[in-house]
């Protein structure tokens, strides 16, 4: 085992980048370029930020802009580099019993709450969960997590979609993981019911840590990785396809 090996960069990242299979591709390309081995723990964005706060990783790749900015303001992070985006989609049964197809997200969620239709939430402080909470706010309410029809699962994205499929309910997912799920037999009765609404955009960033707070973290490589993600890594992101579809769209500031 090479756990004592020197050239390792530890990243805390989110389940969506792991589940879609993007990370191994990025890691391989980055290793070719720099000789540094990228390793990661895939957790929700909330926990990834917590891991960063504790200096238990060297670099973060997350998708919850509001929480990230707060993280930088608190002095835990040093820099935030926007690298790519995809979007969230609202998934539901093909039959769409709540009849929300084509509505705006805010109206759709209001309707779901009115109808008490089953809604599966990540409930794990992940980027997707934070986005969902913000969407409920935009629908003029707090997430109804005391309600029986609101299922707060605390599980990863794929698991939540499987729950929604089992219960014939609705679920907010990132498009990348949905495309992965769509190819599974469990997804045969599920479809996208709402997409393309402006609040559904999902921005990913790389965050480097504050060297004063985490003297032991490998800042040089973390910076190199952030820089690489914003330059050569952009093409790797654009070329990454699942089931022939592009999942992430590079948008680093030139």
């Amino acid at each position, binding site marked *: 085992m090479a*756990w004592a090996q020197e050239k390792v960069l530890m990243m805390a990242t989110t389940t969506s980048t792991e589940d879609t299979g993007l990370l191994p591709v990025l890691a391989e390309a980055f290793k070719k370029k720099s000789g540094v081995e990228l390793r990661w*723990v895939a957790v929700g964005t909330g926990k990834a930020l917590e891991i960063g706060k504790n200096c238990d990783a060297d670099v973060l790749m997350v998708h919850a802009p509001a929480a990230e900015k707060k993280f930088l303001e608190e002095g835990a992070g040093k820099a935030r580099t926007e690298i790519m985006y995809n979007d969230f989609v609202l998934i539901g049964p093909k039959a769409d019993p709540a009849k929300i197809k084509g509505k705006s997200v805010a109206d759709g969620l209001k309707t779901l709450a009115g109808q008490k239709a089953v809604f599966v939430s990540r409930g794990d402080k992940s980027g997707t969960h934070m986005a969902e909470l913000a969407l409920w706010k935009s629908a003029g309410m707090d997430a109804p997590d005391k309600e029986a029809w609101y299922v707060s699962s605390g*599980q*990863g994205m*794929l*698991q939540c979609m499987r729950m929604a499929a089992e219960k014939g309910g609705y679920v907010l997912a990132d498009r990348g993981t949905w495309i992965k799920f769509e190819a599974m037999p*469990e997804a045969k009765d599920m479809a996208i019911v709402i997409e393309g609404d402006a609040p559904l955009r999902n921005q990913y960033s790389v965050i480097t840590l504050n060297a004063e707070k985490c003297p032991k973290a490998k800042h040089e490589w973390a910076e190199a990785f952030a820089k690489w993600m914003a330059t050569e890594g952009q093409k790797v992101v654009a070329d990454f396809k699942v089931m022939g579809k592009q999942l992430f769209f590079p948008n680093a500031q030139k």
Partner: protein
Amino acid sequence: MSYLLDGIARAGELLASGDPETFSAVAATLEATALAMAAALALGLPAGFCLGYFRFPGKRALRTLSDAFMAFPTVVIGLLVYALLSRRGPFGEMGLLFTVPGMALGLALLALPMLVSLTASAVEQMDARLRLTLRTLGADNRQLLLGILWEARHGVMAGVVAAFGRVVSEVGIAMMVGGNIKWHTRTITTAIALETGKGEFAQGIALGMVLLAISMAVNGLLALLKRRGGAR
């Protein structure tokens, strides 16, 4: 039903084709388990022996404590070890979080009380005349310890088997402290949790079969040792 059959077929496939991901998970499991058991045995056997053999004030309290720790929730062990090994924790400097040795530390804590308590029980049940006999035969302290442990081997072995069973099948500690990192700290159990979460049931069941095979093999080996040692 088809899930199960698919899983069994897939297990054969994975093992026969030498699937690198499966073997890396098997290696991580074996490594963490071996490290944890070695540490727990090195501490637990002598401690259990002393607890069972000597009479001293507070012995009963210690024994009760050890028995209570046997029922310690694994999730809490995971949390404690995570907090201790995190960079913000007292042992953060060692950089053990998200590594196999870090994981082994948590697993060793899980195995230790079991080994201590069961060894102590086995030693307590030894005939008091055994010690005299060993002494008259001119045994020194080390030989005395080994001699008594040897005579109590069946009880001790039961403790080892039980501890091994818990350590090899533990998922919470491995997930929390190890971090489920592919090629490094992804063990069979955390891989099963991940694959099931992704809806890859066949893969999960296949890995489960592999885990089952490992436990069976180790248990079989221990049973064999017992027989060679002359069953009672």
